[in-house]
C-alpha cells in the first residue's frame, strides 16, 4: 500500500492527540488516558492496514474496524474526522445533546461499525462478521481493538476460542497493552498471569510490538495478514495517557477530561513534540 512517510504520520498522531484533548476539554468529561494510548494503533490502521473509503463508508469490500473498548472513542472520532468520514467541526460537539458523537460509539456515525461501551463484546461481533465474510467468499478483514483490562471479561475468551475453532485468519485482534485499568494496574486488579501464553494457548498467533511506533505497528499488521489458518492478535505495548507528561501512566486520568489550564499545558507539550519531529 502506498502510504505517506512515517514522519508525516507521527505528526498526524500528535495532531490527533491535540484534537482528542480539545474534544474532551470542551465536553468536560470522557476518557483521556485510554484515548491517548491508542492513537498510533489507529493511525497505523487507518493510514496503512485498513482497506476503506471515507467517501463510501458502507463500501462492500471494506475491512472492518471495531472499537471494542468503546470508551476510547475520542481517538477514533478524531481519526475518522481526519480521514474525512465526517465534518471536523462535529468533533467539538462530543457528548453533547443532539451530537452523533455519543459518549460511547453508536452505529450510525459514518465510519463507526458497532455500538460499544459495554466492555468485552467486540470480538464476538468481529467473529460473526468474519464468518459471514467467509460464507460470502469475501476476502475482507476484521480488526478489533480491546483494552487489556477489558480482557478480564469472560466473553473475550469465549470469542477467542470461537475464532481459533473456526480458524478465522481474517480476524486480527489488537490489545492496547497499557497495563492500567480503572482500579489500578492490571496485575494488581486481577493478575492475568502469562498474558501472551494465554492467547497462544487459546490458539492465536501472537505478535508483540511497540504500540507507539507507527512503523513497527505497520509491520505487525502486515505480518498478521500473512498468518493462515488461525487468528492473530497484536499485543501492543502502550502507555496510558501517552504524549502528555502529567497524564502518562496515571490511573486517575482514566475517566476524566482536562480542565482549561491542564489543556493548555498539554497543548504546549504536544506543540513542542511536534516541533521536534
Amino acid at each position, binding site marked *: 500500500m502506498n502510504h505517506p512517510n512515517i514522519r508525516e504520520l507521527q505528526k498526524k498522531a500528535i495532531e490527533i492527540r491535540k484534537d482528542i484533548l480539545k474534544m474532551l476539554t470542551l465536553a468536560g468529561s470522557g476518557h483521556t488516558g485510554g484515548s491517548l494510548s491508542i492513537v498510533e494503533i489507529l493511525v497505523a490502521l487507518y493510514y496503512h492496514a485498513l482497506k476503506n473509503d471515507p467517501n463510501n463508508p458502507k463500501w462492500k469490500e471494506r475491512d472492518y474496524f471495531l472499537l471494542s473498548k468503546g470508551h476510547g472513542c475520542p481517538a477514533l472520532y478524531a481519526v475518522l474526522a481526519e480521514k474525512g468520514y465526517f465534518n471536523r467541526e462535529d468533533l467539538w460537539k462530543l457528548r453533547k445533546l443532539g451530537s452523533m458523537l455519543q459518549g460511547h460509539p453508536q452505529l450510525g456515525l459514518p465510519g463507526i461499525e458497532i455500538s460499544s461501551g459495554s466492555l468485552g463484546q467486540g470480538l464476538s461481533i468481529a467473529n460473526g*462478521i468474519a464468518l459471514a465474510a467467509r460464507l460470502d467468499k469475501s476476502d475482507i478483514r476484521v480488526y478489533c481493538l480491546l483494552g487489556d483490562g477489558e480482557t478480564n471479561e469472560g466473553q473475550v475468551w469465549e470469542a477467542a476460542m470461537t475464532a481459533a475453532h473456526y480458524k478465522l485468519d481474517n480476524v486480527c485482534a489488537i490489545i492496547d497493552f497499557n497495563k492500567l485499568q480503572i482500579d489500578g494496574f492490571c496485575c494488581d486488579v486481577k493478575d492475568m498471569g502469562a498474558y501472551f501464553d494465554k492467547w497462544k494457548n487459546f490458539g492465536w498467533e501472537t505478535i508483540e510490538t511497540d504500540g507507539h511506533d507507527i512503523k513497527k505497528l505497520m509491520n505487525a499488521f502486515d505480518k498478521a495478514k500473512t498468518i493462515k489458518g488461525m487468528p492473530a492478535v497484536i499485543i501492543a505495548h502502550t502507555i496510558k495517557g501517552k504524549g502528555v507528561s502529567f497524564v502518562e501512566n496515571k490511573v486517575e486520568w482514566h475517566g476524566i477530561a482536562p480542565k482549561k489550564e491542564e489543556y493548555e499545558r498539554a497543548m504546549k507539550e504536544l506543540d513542542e513534540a511536534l516541533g521536534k519531529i
Partner: protein
Amino acid sequence: MAGEKLKMVPTRDGFGEGLIELGRKNKDIVVLSADLTDSTRANWFKKEFPERFFGLGVAEQDMIGTAAGFALMGKIPFACTFGVFASGRAWDQIRVSVAYMNLNVKIIGTHGGISVGPDGATHQALEEISLMRILPNMTIIVPCDALEAKRATIESVNLKGPVYIRLGRSGAHVITKESDPFKIGKAVCLKDGKDLTIFACGQMVYEAALACDELKKDGIDARLVNMHTPKPIDKDCIIKAASQTGAIVAVEEHTIAGGFGSAIAEVVIENCPVPVKFVGIRDRFGVSGEPDELFEHFGLRAKNIVQAAKEALAMKR
C-alpha cells in the same frame, strides 16, 4: 375447543419446521447454537444446511455477539438456546450488541416456562417477557402452538430488527389452523364476549379457552384473545376490550412481575382503566415436577383463570 381431539406438538418443533422452510427459501439464513442444538431443533436446520450452521459451545454471550456480526453483514441469524440462558445470561449482549444497534437477529428461547418440568428452577425461564420487553427495538412473540410457532418463525424474517421467540419444551395443543390469520403485533380474537376479556399467550391460550367454556356454564360471556405478540402489543385490541367488556384477565406461564399481564395493564391503566387480574407466577422460582403437576402447583389451570375472571367481574362497577 375443549371437546375436540387436538394434536399435542411442542412449539419448538414448529420452530424447527419453519426454520428449514426458511433455509430453503433464503440463503441468508444462518443458525447459531450454544450446545443445545438438538433440544432447540436447530439440528433440523443443521442436517440440511451444515455450512450455514455455527456451534458456539456453551457460550451464550459469544453466540449473541457472533449473531450480531452476521447481522451486520446482511445475514439473518437465528441464535438458539434455552430461554433462561438466552434472555438472562446474554441480556447485556442482547441489549448492546443487538437491540441498541437494532440488528436483524432472531433469538430463539426454547424451554420457556414451567412446562420444562423436572429440570427445575434453573431451567424454567419465567422472566423472558419481562427481560426482553424493557429493551427498545425488541419484538417478542410467544406462539400458542406449533403451527403458530412455525408461522412466527417464518414471519419474523419479514421484520427487520431483533425478535425474541419464546418456545416450549413439552407438547402443546394445536389450536390454530393454517386458515387463521397471523400477523406479528396483531392479536387474534378467538371468541367474542361482552362480560370480560381474557388475554393469554403461549400454551395458556388453550387453558384460557377451557376457562371460557367453564365460565359460559355460569352464564358469563368471556371474550378470549390470543395475544401472541407481547411486544409491540396490540393496543387497539386492549383498549377495545377494556371499554367494551369492562374487566380484564391476563394469563401467562411466566412471572407476573413486568411480564405479559403488566404489558396489558399498562395499556389499560393509561387509556381505559378497568379492573385487571393476573394469572401467572408470583415472585417465585420454579420447581421440579411433571409439567401437568406444575401447572396445578402454580395455579395455572382453567379453574384458576375462572376464579380470576369472577374476581375481576366482582370488581367491575
